[in-house]
């Protein structure tokens, strides 16, 4: 059975697709994380975001995360989707879904995957304000 689904795309992400992928008859629970573009950063109004990816390496790092959580946690399957390009407020840059026989493992694995994604996956976020744009986290 296929237990890992990785997608990097400039089209809208589907939470339903991720949940359908990880749903399994032996799973008891599914935990998902859905990122959404916030309308402000440290009180400053954000107009839109742009995500750039080093595509091949991003896919490979996303897969590494999926493989690691399958190894480290008692889970059944995992879907990790990330979007690239321009996103408006409220749109979804990332979706992670994890299914497991018991929910504790699903929660822990999903949170771990998301923490890891933000650290290792070569994707960059540019925030556009009314008076300019900034690459997030680039400078201390």
């Amino acid at each position, binding site marked *: 059975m296929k237990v890992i689904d990785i997608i990097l795309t400039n089209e809208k992400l589907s939470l339903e697709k991720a949940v359908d992928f990880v749903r399994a008859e032996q799973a008891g629970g599914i935990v998902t994380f859905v*990122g959404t573009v916030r309308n402000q950063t440290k009180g400053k109004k954000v107009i839109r975001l742009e*995500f*750039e*990816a*080093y595509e*091949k*390496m*991003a896919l*490979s790092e996303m897969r590494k995360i999926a493989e690691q959580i399958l190894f480290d946690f008692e889970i059944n399957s995992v879907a990790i989707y*990330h979007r690239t390009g321009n996103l408006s407020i409220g749109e979804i*840059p*990332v979706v992670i879904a994890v299914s497991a026989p018991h929910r504790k493992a699903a929660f822990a694995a999903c949170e771990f995957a*998301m923490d890891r*994604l*933000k*650290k*290792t*996956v*070569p*994707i*960059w*976020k*540019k925030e556009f304000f009314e008076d300019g744009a900034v*690459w*997030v*986290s*680039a*400078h*201390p």
Partner: protein
Amino acid sequence: MEIEILAFGITKDIIGNKSLKLKVETPCRVRDLKILLKKDYPKLELLTSLMIAVNENYGDLDLLLQEGDEIALIPPVAGG
């Protein structure tokens, strides 16, 4: 040898291009490349971090670069 380096995110802005070609002495390690680049582009020094990916993996500072390697500048990532 001549190597080609891909640039992403803010490093693309700093270098003014999405890739650059560079002549380096051999042997050249990731460490040496970072020193060279920071000399040519001092703004790279101001970043929170700068990793070098070699063939789509994070490269250790001691990693020896080979002709034909796919090399990329990885400024602080911010997915999600």
